[in-house]
């Protein structure tokens, strides 16, 4: 029953994350959803995953959201929807009802454990390709983040290029005058 309570609260937090007007508030509600999901995972016996979800989902992603919102600014938008609100609510409720009916009516019988397995064995040996994909994903994600967050340099064109070349001309002239004014060294 505790897991049911946690899941209901997580769904309420998720709804609040969408309803919140400010982006920071939305990111904090999402962090709450992640923390509650991690608790539910722990209750299910997925202890390793719960720790990872708590540190990555709640910690790292929230920090990234707050950083991005600080850069981009937290300006609440004027009211307005992509699709009409009654249509969105109707479609969502229909989606939940159909999915719920489909999933809950086809519940499989609970199975017993087929044998003792260890998470590290499965992860490092049985799912080696997944590990490789994760490494590539993390690497590409870091590179993409650095590339996208980098400041855009203005191309050398127009007035900027002219100012650079005129500055260099002035420096060359000053250097020539300095060389001409220097007295010749005695032989």
């Amino acid at each position: 029953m505790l897991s049911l309570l946690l899941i209901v609260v997580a769904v309420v937090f998720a709804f609040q994350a969408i309803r919140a007007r400010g982006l920071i508030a939305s990111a904090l509600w999402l962090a709450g959803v992640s923390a509650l999901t991690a608790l539910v995972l722990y209750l299910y016996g997925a202890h390793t995953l719960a720790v990872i979800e708590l540190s990555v989902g709640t910690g790292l992603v929230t920090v990234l959201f707050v950083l991005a919102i600080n850069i981009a600014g937290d300006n609440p938008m004027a009211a307005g929807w992509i699709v009409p609100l009654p249509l969105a609510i109707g479609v969502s409720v229909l989606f939940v009802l159909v999915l719920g009916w489909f999933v809950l009516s086809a519940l499989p019988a609970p199975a017993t454990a087929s044998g003792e397995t260890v998470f590290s064995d499965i992860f490092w040996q049985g799912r080696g390709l997944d590990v490789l994909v994760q490494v590539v994903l993390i690497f590409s994600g870091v590179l993409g983040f650095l590339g996208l967050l980098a400041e855009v340099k203005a191309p050398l064109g127009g007035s900027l290029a002219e100012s650079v070349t005129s500055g260099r001309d002035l420096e060359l002239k000053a250097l020539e005058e300095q060389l001409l004014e220097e007295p010749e060294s005695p032989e």
Partner: protein
Amino acid sequence: MNLSPFTIGLIGVVGLLGVGFYGLLVSRNLIKIVVCLQILAKAALLALVAAGQAAGQIDLGQSLALTVIVADTIVAVMGIALGVQIRRRTGTLDVRKLSSLRG
């Protein structure tokens, strides 16, 4: 009413999927759309672990869900970075104003 852990997990999956789907329909802010994608990914995570627990293979469920966490984090990172760049270039995060292919 005696609900099994798998049923409780599925209730959470359906609820989170519904809320995330609703958010995708009504959100105009690019950052908030990434938040909705995160909620959908949480539902997928919960589904994998609940299925693994019900099948008696929680470790297999964990290893699959770990891949989901990594992919979900990369999606969030790239979405956030794209949002920041779009805000710098266009001055807005409103997805309706970003469309340049209006008919």
